[in-house]
């Protein structure tokens, strides 16, 4: 696989250059070709890759490298710095309202992992001594309500439902009263999966937002998503205003380039990573680890030292 060898390939490219001291534009281009391939194979959006590479190139053939005695090292460092800067600045904190209940709303494409993530978040918050209420606002998918109820039961957390005959907007609205009545201080609303191009269903989310006034609207994204990730995130962000992203299914071998693309284009912080199907498999998101994963460079800093 291409990315497996990125570290080696960069090493090779620079080995040949060693001792020459200065990098020509051609030298840099050759190295960046490998970086570009690795990013594309990792599903980083084409346009993001293009901008990223040209930015690195600009910096690399500038003064700092020309004058450097170890140009290879400099290029790798620039690549890593730029990537870390793009991925960075994220934090896994949730906006907790000073006036309970804090309302969290999960949105996303079909099958991304919203319902499971609702359960995981509830579990996490319960462990932090919060009292969550799960809200079943998916009235479309067969057995979606039952799915959330099963998770609620496993966690011993109440699930608010009005069946599948009430509108999700009504359900969301009434769930807040219910939270107050039951003294629950966090409300987690599970919404149905939908396409970002489905006007009617996107409107439904806007109405839910209007009623429930969420403190956090989180987009749940499958880490295996390809080039479309950016369009999806832009649409949800544009129509709802996202507070963050949760990347799921990172327990597989997906490079997760979607993370970089979404971060680069929407600026939304990635707050958590889903690492499995079980209810405790939710972790804070670490931008630096993600940067290495996307590049397929396990030990980036080690590489910089060796270059």
């Amino acid at each position, binding site marked *: 696989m291409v990315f497996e060898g990125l570290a080696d390939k960069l090493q090779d490219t620079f080995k040949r250059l060693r001792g020459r001291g200065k990098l020509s534009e051609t030298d840099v281009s050759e190295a960046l070709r490998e970086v570009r391939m690795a990013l594309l194979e990792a*599903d980083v959006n084409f346009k993001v890759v293009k901008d990223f590479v040209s930015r690195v190139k600009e910096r690399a053939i500038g003064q700092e490298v020309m004058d450097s005695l170890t140009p290879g090292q400099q290029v790798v460092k620039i690549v890593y710095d730029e990537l870390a800067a793009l991925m960075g600045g994220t934090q896994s904190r949730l906006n907790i309202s000073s006036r309970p209940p804090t309302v969290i709303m999960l949105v996303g494409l079909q099958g991304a992992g919203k319902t499971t993530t609702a359960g995981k978040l509830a579990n996490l918050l319960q462990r932090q001594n919060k009292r969550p209420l799960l809200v079943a606002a998916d009235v479309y998918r067969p057995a979606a309500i*039952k799915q959330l109820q099963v998770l609620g039961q496993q966690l011993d957390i109440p699930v608010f439902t009005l069946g599948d005959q009430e509108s999700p907007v009504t359900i969301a609205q009434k769930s807040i009263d219910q939270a107050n009545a039951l003294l629950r201080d966090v409300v987690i609303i599970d919404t149905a999966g939908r396409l970002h191009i489905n006007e009617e269903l996107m409107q439904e989310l806007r109405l839910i937002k209007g009623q429930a006034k969420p403190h956090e609207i989180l987009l749940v994204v499958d880490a*295996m998503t390809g*080039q*479309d*990730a950016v369009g999806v995130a832009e649409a949800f962000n544009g129509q709802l205003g996202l507070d963050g992203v949760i990347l799921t299914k990172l*327990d597989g071998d997906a490079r997760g380039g979607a993370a970089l693309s979404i971060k680069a284009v929407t600026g939304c912080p990635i707050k958590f990573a889903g690492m499995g199907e079980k209810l405790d498999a939710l972790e804070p998101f670490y931008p630096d680890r993600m940067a290495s994963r996307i590049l397929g460079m396990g030990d980036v800093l080690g590489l910089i030292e060796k270059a």
Partner: protein
Amino acid sequence: MGFFDALKAGMEKTRKNLTENIERLVVGYAQIDDELLEELEAILLTADVGVKTTETLLSDIKAAIKKKEIETPQDLKPYLRKRMTEILALNAAAISQGGHKPLVLLVVGVNGVGKTTTIGKLGRYFRQQGKSVMLAAGDTFRAAAIDQLEIWGKRIDADVMKHTEGADPAAVAYDACKSAVARGVDVLIIDTAGRLHTKTNLMEELKKVHRVIAKEIVGAPHETLLVLDATTGQNAMSQANIFSQAAQVSGIVLTKLDGSAKGGVVLAIKHELDIPVRWIGVGEGMDDLRPFIPEEFVAALFADKE
């Protein structure tokens, strides 16, 4: 403008232009040059075709130019379409009952791609042909997966063979095979839990299900369908590769093509692993399943209006 804003603006432009890209190339360039080829590359990469297969297609084009098969930019699009359609062309007959009774289909894939929904749609397809259908609830892991399949069974008027949550999926498959034979069911479709292909123990479990079916009914499963989400990028290659090793995948169902993702990775999968796409999913309803037609798919990759 900050970096994010610049990127965003650029993004908007790329997306809008993509649909017109090829046309623009054709009228915009008097001859085929590097810049044109670079734009072509962009179109392919943006559709998730992947670096390797994109490179192959571009080198095919270069060879065709040398051979004078392509002389002007006008020749590019038909050439590429022909070439891609060739790659995608089915290498085996589409699903049919054949002489099998029951015809046994096993449906596999990673989490959340649309397996259970596809099973409902496939069952509907056979029901409409007047066949009797049994669904087997082989996902005994995910919360309410059995309930979900039962709702589908009711919708399409098909029997559902189920055990309880946490039961051995191989035992469900075994009972389903026995019962389908005993009841003279025409088509048996077996659901499985979503699993990431990297989880060895879960892939072993799948092998066991496959073995049990093969032992119970000679020649079964007659089709093992791998469900892929069209939104998935290059990871689909790895999924196809490892699932075929474990369960001898005979065809792909590409779901969620009603979104804006193009599912171009199936081109790479067909090209490199020779697994054909059989069906596409275009919605959540029971009639939203279509046979895969390479020409139509390629046209959609280029987002033609025709």
